[in-house]
């Protein structure tokens, strides 16, 4: 089977039953996407397929040989972080880090959905959804985080997408936190 992942061509001889997630993790040394539940119930495995966020655990690798797949490794690396990755670090939008690659890939896909004008469950007017905390929370609810960095995830996404409207930038938050505990 042949794949295009993060702009690179890969070839792998794998069992027909192999999920896209297991293909990456077990055969291509791309372990950034995580397996949390293997049933589309946690979002840790989120990748971008042709720019759309999906649960890579719930799709067969064989079905994606013609697609452009982006995993967290293709989003950015420690030497060159994507703005969202940087914002997640600045906002402490994670703790154990296990759900994080999925959160970030999901956020990239989600922001693109907002750009396209897609509504969500909490949009009062489906024709013109607004961009606020509640919208981000709803749209990111397919990514569980047991450490519960949810509020920081919202802040990080907001800072990247809409820093002008954000009164909770990482710099602001750092200052408040430092003032509180430092002598």
């Amino acid at each position: 089977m042949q794949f295009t992942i993060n702009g690179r061509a890969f070839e792998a001889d794998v069992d027909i039953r192999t999920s896209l997630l297991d293909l990456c993790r077990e055969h291509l040394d791309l372990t950034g996407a995580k397996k949390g539940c293997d049933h589309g119930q946690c979002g840790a495995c989120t990748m971008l397929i042709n720019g759309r966020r999906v649960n890579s655990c719930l799709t067969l690798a064989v079905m994606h040989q013609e697609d452009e797949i982006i995993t967290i490794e293709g989003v950015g690396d420690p030497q060159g972080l994507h703005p969202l990755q940087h914002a997640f670090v600045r906002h402490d939008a994670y703790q154990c880090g296990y759900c994080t690659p999925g959160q970030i890939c999901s956020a990239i896909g989600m922001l693109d959905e907002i750009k396209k004008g897609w509504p969500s469950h909490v949009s009062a007017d489906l024709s013109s959804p607004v961009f606020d905390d509640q919208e981000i929370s709803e749209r990111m609810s397919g990514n569980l985080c047991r450490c519960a960095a949810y509020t920081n995830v919202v802040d990080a996404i907001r800072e990247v997408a809409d820093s002008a409207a954000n009164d909770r930038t990482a710099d602001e938050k750092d200052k408040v936190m430092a003032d509180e505990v430092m002598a």
Partner: protein
Amino acid sequence: MKTFDYRKALTPEAAVETFDGETARFIAGGTNLLDLMKLQVETPDKLVDISRLDLASIDEREDGGLTIGALVPNADLAADPRVIDRYEVLSRALLAGASGQLRNKASTGGNLLQRTRCYYFYDTGSRCNKRTPGSGCDAIGGANRILAVLGTSEHCIATHPSDMAVAMRALDATVLTLKRDGDRRRISIHDFYRLPGDTPHIETVLDTGELITHIELPKPPSGRQAYRKVRDRASYAFALVSVGAVIHIQERRIARAAFAFGGLAPMPWRSQAVELALIGKAPTRDTFEAAADALLAEAKGFGGNDFKIPLARRTLIATLRDLTEH
């Protein structure tokens, strides 16, 4: 997951032709099928990949209705401006279901065919007539808080998990199919599902290898639409009760009403009795009460899910109130 023969189909005709034998399955989004295959609840020996068929467009008909390709992802359907404008209940139902990731993958046709989330169906170590006909039902007498209160049988009390299908029933959709012999069928959504009776493993009227190609929405209904979903979390949870509603008021009387329900029954539930109780009446509290009475006259709880009866009642009445105010 048992191993299987994988075939990719490039046309609907090739898809149904490739579907030979009782134990093949079509795969499109795969979000429910692979979930169940991993647990060996589903054990097809052949998968016919229909994900690349040219069935992913939403086309407008002259009457203003829409023909939706079976492969249109749930996300695209929910965000389509024509759906938002004319069939808000459908858009709302879709957006109330699953997660952004799942909606991006799950197809319209597949959504109709979602299997129940009954705990005992999902556990191959339990008895389940739906999974293994004749084995018994562990849900009756077991943990059944999430299960059905309407349309059940002594063999099965599963609920249908789809939100989208509830809206499709409220909108009188039609399912278009292609059969293995090349025949095409139009099946009203109201005739599409089967109640469990003594064959809970048979959930729809589809024949073996019959492929859903499109779903047709009739001319948009007049009036107001709503979808209200009650669940255990604020998001990313299946419905305990949901109501899909279309209601049209003329001269202070209810001229038309279409109400469908999720979380209550083994199929997305539509009750003519509810509509009879509403049509021609003034939108008053008494009318709403009568509609709720009509919906729940036959309702039967199994202990853990008894609360769904008052919950459905209150949710229906509140939805009616919201839609008829102003």
